[in-house]
C-alpha cells in the first residue's frame, strides 16, 4: 500500500514538474547563425524565465517561404538582411516597433538606416549588426599594397589564388565600385560593365565559395585572397593565424547589415519586443558581435563598453569612422533588377 502511494505521489510530482516545464513560455525566432550562440541567448532566457527556440535560415526567400507556410503565431522574431526589410514589410509580416524604446541614438549613425527599416514613417525593424564585404587575404602570401586596388586584387597576378564569396549582391557591388558605379545607382544598363569585371574576376579565381569553404580555403593556403570577405570571415581565425587579415581598398567596399523585428502574427509581442531590446542593448550587442558563428560590428556604439580591447582590435573598432565613410550598402535591387543580377551571376559562374 505504501509503495502504491509512493508511486502515485511520484507520478503526480513528475506530472506537475512536466506541467511546469511545459508552461514555461517559449519564444520562436527565425535567425542567422550568429544568434544561436548560447552565450548570447542564455542570459535572456534566465532573466525572463523563458525558452528561446531558434531556427537558422539562409536567404531571405527561404525565410519568407517558411513564414508563409507556417501557422500565424508560430514565429515571434525575425532576423533579416538589412536590404530586405522592405520585402518583409510589403508582405505584411512585421509589426511596428515602438521607436522610443529602441536605443538608436546610441547607434553608429550610418547604420540606423531608417530608409531601410521603416515605411511610411513607421519603424518595422532595427539594425543589430553590420560589417563589410571587402577583401580578406593572407598578408604573408600577397603584397598588402596590392590589396588596396581592386583591379590588381583580381588581376592575373593572383590567378588561381583567389576565391569569390558565393553571394552575388556584395560581389556585384564590389565589381560596381571597381567600375566607378555607386551601389545604390546600379541599373540594368550597368550590368554589362559589371559583368565584364566579374568575368575577369571569375577567370582568375580558383573557386566561388560559401562562408565555411572560403574560410577553409584561406586557412589551408588553397587561396590567398577572398573577394567579398571581411571581418566576419577572418575574425574567428585571427588568434591562430594572425596573417589572415582584411582591408578596405581605395575604391571602397560594400557594407552588409542585418536587422531584427517582431512578427505581426506573434502571440507574444511583448516578450518578442523584450528580445529585440535585449539584442540591441549594449550587453546583447557585445555578445552578438563576438558570436561563435561569425563576428561583426555591433550597431550600438555602447557595446564597446562590454568588449575587451583585444576584441575591439579584431573588430577594428577605432577605424569604423573611416570605414563607414568609405563603404556603401550593398545593392538592394528591385525584383526585376534582382532577377537580371542573379541571372548574370549564374551565367558568370557557368563560364
Amino acid at each position, binding site marked *: 500500500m505504501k509503495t502504491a502511494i509512493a508511486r502515485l505521489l511520484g507520478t503526480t510530482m513528475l506530472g506537475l514538474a512536466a506541467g511546469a516545464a511545459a508552461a514555461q513560455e517559449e519564444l520562436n525566432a527565425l535567425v542567422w547563425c550568429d544568434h544561436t550562440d548560447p552565450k548570447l541567448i542564455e542570459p535572456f532566457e534566465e532573466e525572463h524565465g523563458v525558452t528561446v527556440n531558434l531556427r537558422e535560415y539562409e*536567404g531571405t526567400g527561404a525565410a519568407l517561404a517558411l513564414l508563409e507556410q507556417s501557422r500565424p503565431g508560430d514565429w515571434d522574431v525575425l532576423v533579416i538582411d538589412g536590404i530586405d526589410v522592405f520585402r518583409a514589410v*510589403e508582405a505584411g509580416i512585421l509589426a511596428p516597433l515602438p521607436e522610443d524604446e529602441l536605443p538608436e541614438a546610441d547607434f553608429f549613425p550610418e547604420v540606423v538606416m531608417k530608409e531601410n527599416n521603416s515605411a511610411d514613417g513607421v519603424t518595422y525593424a532595427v539594425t543589430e549588426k553590420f560589417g563589410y564585404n571587402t577583401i580578406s587575404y593572407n598578408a604573408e602570401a600577397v603584397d598588402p599594397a596590392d590589396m588596396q586596388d581592386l583591379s590588381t586584387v583580381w588581376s592575373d597576378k593572383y590567378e588561381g589564388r583567389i576565391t569569390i564569396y558565393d553571394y552575388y549582391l556584395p560581389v556585384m557591388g564590389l565589381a560596381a565600385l571597381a567600375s566607378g558605379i555607386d551601389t545604390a545607382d546600379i541599373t540594368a544598363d550597368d550590368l554589362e560593365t559589371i559583368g565584364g569585371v566579374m568575368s575577369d574576376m571569375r577567370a582568375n579565381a580558383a573557386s*566561388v*565559395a560559401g562562408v565555411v569553404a572560403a574560410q*577553409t580555403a584561406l586557412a589551408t593556403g588553397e587561396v590567398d585572397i577572398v573577394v567579398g570577405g571581411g571581418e566576419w570571415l577572418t575574425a574567428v581565425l585571427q588568434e591562430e593565424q594572425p596573417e589572415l587579415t582584411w582591408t578596405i581598398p581605395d575604391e571602397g567596399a560594400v557594407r552588409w547589415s542585418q536587422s531584427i523585428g517582431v512578427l505581426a502574427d506573434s502571440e507574444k509581442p511583448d516578450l518578442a519586443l523584450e528580445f529585440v531590446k535585449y539584442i540591441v542593448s549594449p550587453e546583447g550587442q557585445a555578445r552578438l558581435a563576438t558570436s561563435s558563428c561569425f563576428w561583426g560590428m555591433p550597431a550600438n556604439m555602447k557595446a564597446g563598453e562590454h568588449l575587451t580591447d583585444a576584441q575591439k582590435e579584431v573588430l577594428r573598432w577605432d577605424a569604423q569612422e573611416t570605414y563607414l565613410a568609405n563603404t556603401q550598402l550593398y545593392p538592394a535591387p528591385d525584383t526585376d533588377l534582382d532577377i537580371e543580377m542573379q541571372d548574370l551571376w549564374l*551565367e558568370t559562374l557557368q563560364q
Partner: protein
Amino acid sequence: MSARADSLKGWGFAAPALLWTTAFFVVPFVVMAAMSLATLDGRTLIWGLHADNYLELAEERYLWRAVLVSLEITATVTVVSVVLAYPLAWIIAFRVPARWQRLALLLAILPFWTSYVVRSYAWLLVLAREGVVNQTLMTLGIVAEPVTLANTRIATVTGFVHFFVMLLTLTIYANLVQLSPNYRRAAMDLGANAFQTFRHVILPLTLPGIATGAFLTFVLCIGDYITPQILGGNTELTVPQVIMVQLGRRADFPLASALAIVLMALVTLAYLACARWLRIDRL
C-alpha cells in the same frame, strides 16, 4: 466470398504503403508539377498553365548548361564507380576467405559511418594545394608545383566515387555470391579461359547487380547538392545547385520546380534505359 476476403486482405496489407506513397510522393509530385507551370509576377505567385519556366530553361544558357554538367558528372561517376567496385566485389566474393568476408564488407562500408558533409570537407583538405595528394606527388618528384585538384570537377567526381564505390560493391557482391560455382566450372570444362568465362558467363549474370547499383548511383548523384557545392568550388553548377540559388534569395519556386521536374525526367529515362536494356525490372 473467399476471393473477396482475400482481395480485401491484400488491399489491407498494401494500404499503409499506398497511403505513404500517395501522401509523400504522389501529392508532393503533383504540387511540384503544378508549381512548375505557375509563374511569378514580381513576388506574387500566379497559378495556371504557363510554359515560362520551361521556355526559360531552354533559352538561358546557364540553365541547360547545368543540366549538361549534371549529366556529365553523373555519367563519369557511374562508370568510374562500376569499374572500381566490380574488382573489389570480386575479390571480396572469391578471393577473401569466407570467414573474413564480413570483415572485408565492413571495412568496405566503413566510410558510410562518417557524416557526408564532414567527408566532403575532408576530401577538400586531402586535395588542397598543401594536401596529402599534392605533398605526395611533389615528394615523389612527379610534379614540381602543386596541382589544382580541389574546387574542380575532378574533386567532385572523387568525392562521389568514394561514396558510390561502397554502394556498388555491396550490390555487385550480393549478385556475385549468389552465382553457383558450377557456371564457372562448366565454362572451363567447355574450354573457356578465365577471361572468356568472365566475359561470356559471369559478367552477363552479374549485370542485374551492376544495373541496380548503377541506377542507384545515377539517382543519388544527379540529385546531390552537397558534394558539388563543397568540392566543386562552384566552378560549374549542377542542377541542384541552381535550384538552391533560385530558392535562397528570390524563392522562385516555379522555376525551381521546373528544374526538379527535369531532374525527375532524367531519372525516369535512366530507369527506362535500365529496364529496357539491362532488365532491371526483373529484380
